[in-house]
């Protein structure tokens, strides 16, 4: 059995960021994921906001990492060819009391080092955010806020990490872990892994992983957020990310611009028990609509084309990122709720430093491939470029998903780059993510997946075993 220098449990944005950061060094790294594909846990239901660092207490770890991460993500997104757009955010005040609160937020954010903050008045708001509720009196404008596709970031981080030598294992659910002779033995549903260091980035299940090594001093409490995606036709609904004043448990219901163009409204914030409860509700919808309309009154529920619920892995108020002295070589990266996506590159650097402090030799590789070729998406390029692409490869003109304009070529490429499921194709390409919800393109995508992965059509799943799309074929019905 091969011994890895570092094993990372959990291939969401935290696990893949750490893996990619560590792949700069001469290390054998294993990234272990229980799901069929990467980013299928907490990361897939992320809002995709790169926060500027506002709405965090000045002394908090998450506040510092958020500000650092916001700076780092720009370079990383360029290196990986993931689209990052700096759209800026507005926290909106509706009355005199709100203004006091805004000023307090501004001061706290400035202590954290958030750049460029300013209070904008009613005139500014009317000019720069025309659909905003006219009752708004002023806003806190943070220019460094941005948006990114959370899953494409994970997939591209992972692809780059693999190029730099990281080994990724999916469908490997950790059953138990033991520590003997300076090694961790990680017994999973796929295989037994051995590593010198172990990083726990298991998201909602980080407490259970930690518990396997006797560290039981934190609990992950899922906090559910329901989000509602609007039709792309409404892409101009808002020009910035729009926030109300934050509450104690969340940043509130927001108007979110997304990297895909569809505006999104949400999320709710509800503490629940079940780590697998991703259901949405009428009450969630009503709450989100009511709160979102307070910001932009013209929002119409008829424009909702999709919705989902995600669970934030909450462990107290701040992140838990530490080396466990009781279990040398074990690093917990837990409770990474908002602003975890923004902080992820800074968390990765922090984890590398913690490993170094605990005597892992970080020797730089002679060649680290920092760059990857940007993935082509027809929906984000002008038609003149599309024309050139089609000339180069006919399959770019073979449109499979007409709502989002995704070609057979893009879908095939996505599968060749690692998509194994319908959701994996959707997250990478946007095929099935539009207004018809896959009614027109499902059959072709199933066929492409089956062909590329050499799987029977009946074996194609939505997101892994048990979620097969069809249950039989001609002559198979009575099987």
């Amino acid at each position: 059995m091969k011994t890895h220098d570092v094993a990372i449990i959990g291939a969401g944005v935290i696990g893949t960021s750490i893996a990619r950061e560590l792949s700069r060094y001469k290390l054998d790294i294993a990234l272990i994921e229980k799901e069929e594909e990467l980013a299928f846990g907490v990361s897939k239901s992320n809002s995709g906001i790169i926060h500027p660092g506002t709405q965090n207490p000045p002394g908090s770890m998450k506040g510092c990492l958020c500000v650092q991460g916001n700076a780092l993500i720009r370079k990383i997104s360029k290196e990986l060819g993931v689209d990052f757009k700096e759209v800026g955010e507005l926290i909106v005040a509706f009355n005199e009391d709100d203004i006091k609160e805004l000023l307090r937020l501004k001061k706290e954010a400035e202590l954290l080092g958030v750049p460029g903050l300013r209070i904008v008045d009613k005139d500014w708001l009317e000019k720069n955010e025309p659909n905003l509720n006219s009752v708004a009196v002023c806003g806190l404008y943070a220019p460094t806020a941005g948006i990114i596709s959370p899953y494409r970031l994970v997939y591209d981080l992972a692809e780059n990490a693999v190029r730099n030598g990281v080994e990724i294992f999916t469908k490997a659910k950790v059953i138990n872990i033991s520590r003997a002779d300076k090694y961790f033995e990680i017994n999973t549903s796929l295989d037994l892994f051995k590593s010198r260091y172990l990083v726990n980035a298991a998201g909602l299940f980080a407490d259970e992983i930690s518990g396997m090594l006797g560290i039981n001093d934190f609990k992950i409490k899922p906090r559910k957020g329901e989000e509602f995606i609007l039709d792309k036709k409404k892409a101009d609904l808002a020009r910035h990310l729009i926030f109300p004043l934050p509450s104690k448990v969340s940043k509130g219901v927001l108007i979110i611009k997304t990297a895909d163009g569809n505006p999104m409204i949400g999320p709710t914030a509800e503490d629940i028990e079940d780590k697998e409860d991703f259901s949405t509700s009428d009450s969630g919808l009503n709450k989100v609509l009511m709160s979102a309309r307070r910001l932009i009154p013209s929002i119409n529920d008829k424009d909702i084309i999709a919705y989902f619920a995600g669970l934030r892995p909450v462990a107290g108020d701040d992140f838990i990122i530490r080396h466990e002295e009781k279990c040398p070589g074990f690093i917990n990266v837990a409770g990474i709720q908002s602003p975890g996506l923004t902080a992820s590159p800074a968390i990765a650097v922090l984890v590398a430093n913690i490993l170094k402090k605990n005597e892992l030799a970080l020797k730089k590789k002679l060649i680290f491939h920092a760059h990857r070729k940007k993935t082509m998406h027809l929906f984000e390029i002008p038609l003149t470029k599309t024309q050139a692409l089609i000339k180069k490869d006919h399959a770019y003109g073979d449109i499979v998903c007409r709502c989002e304009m995704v070609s057979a070529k893009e879908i095939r490429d996505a599968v060749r780059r690692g998509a194994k499921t319908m959701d994996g194709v959707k997250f990478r390409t946007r095929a099935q993510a539009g207004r018809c919800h896959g009614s027109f393109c499902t059959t072709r995508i199933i066929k492409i997946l089956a062909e590329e992965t050499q799987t029977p059509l009946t074996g194609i799943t939505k997101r892994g075993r048990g979620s097969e799309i069809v249950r039989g074929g001609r002559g198979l019905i009575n099987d």
Partner: protein
Amino acid sequence: MIKRDLVIVGGGPAGMAAAVSAYENGVKDILLVERDQYLGGILNQCVHTGFGINYFKEILTGPEYADRFIEKVKNIPEIEVSLKSIVVSLMPDKIITFLKPGRLETIKAKAIIMATGCREKTREMVHIQGTRPAGIFSAGLAQKLINIEGLLPGKEIIVVGSGDIGLIMARRFTLEGAKVKAIIEIQKETRGLLRNMVQCVEDFNIPVYFNHKISRIYGKDRVEKVSVCKVDDNFNEISGSLFEIKCDTILMSVGLIPENELIEMAGVRIDGNKTSVPGIFMCGNCLKIYDLVDWVTQDSFLAGKLAATTIELLLKPGSHSNTMGAGLQ
């Protein structure tokens, strides 16, 4: 830029009838753009009978009905058909761009007929609480999977809504050996044709629950069950009426929406039966949702004729096309 007299978007029954009619009314340069690999549109997956009773005075299947027009179109050399071609841009000055394998083409037309059909409302649009597992299909997608691909989407079926496609699919699943456990309709009567209620539902003893709705969908990876409740006149749940049905598949048949994204993108307004741009016409399900294809054919013939008149007027010096009035009358 290539110039054409008439471009028709959509090669289903509406587009084909419009093309034939335009030709018969004197247009000699017609391009019919279809995104699928064959003409006929949604008729190709409608293998049941009931088509053509009014127009052909015969009972035909969907593919048979489509075939009559495909033959006609094929026999008119003045109609050029471009398959696997998807229109990505329409401008109010009648410039249209489409992609096909290996090509992007931009065409300036004298007249355009949009015959883009419709799509089905999804579970997301009617908002049903619960999880989002595999096993939730629009009735039309299920129809395509069974009739075109030879795949069975599921074995224990709940149909939501009693639109015609839902009723027809209830029978189709039964014939394929699956068990249709219930049709759940929020209204107090069917939205579909009476004949479909009799031939697809009553003849197969499929239970229908009127004044009921799905309250919640359950299942982590695949649909496992639904809870159903009775509703009052405002479609609100009547307390105490909740019950559960085990199933692995949910078919949505809750209505159709005209596909007018291109028209909207062009900034063309639809006002009743007219468009705001002279020379841009619409026909078929993208204009309004029809019960029967026979009426689609009939109205689309009119659209073809109107387009022909517009083009003819353009050819005559001194005339103004916009005296024509745009759109279907």
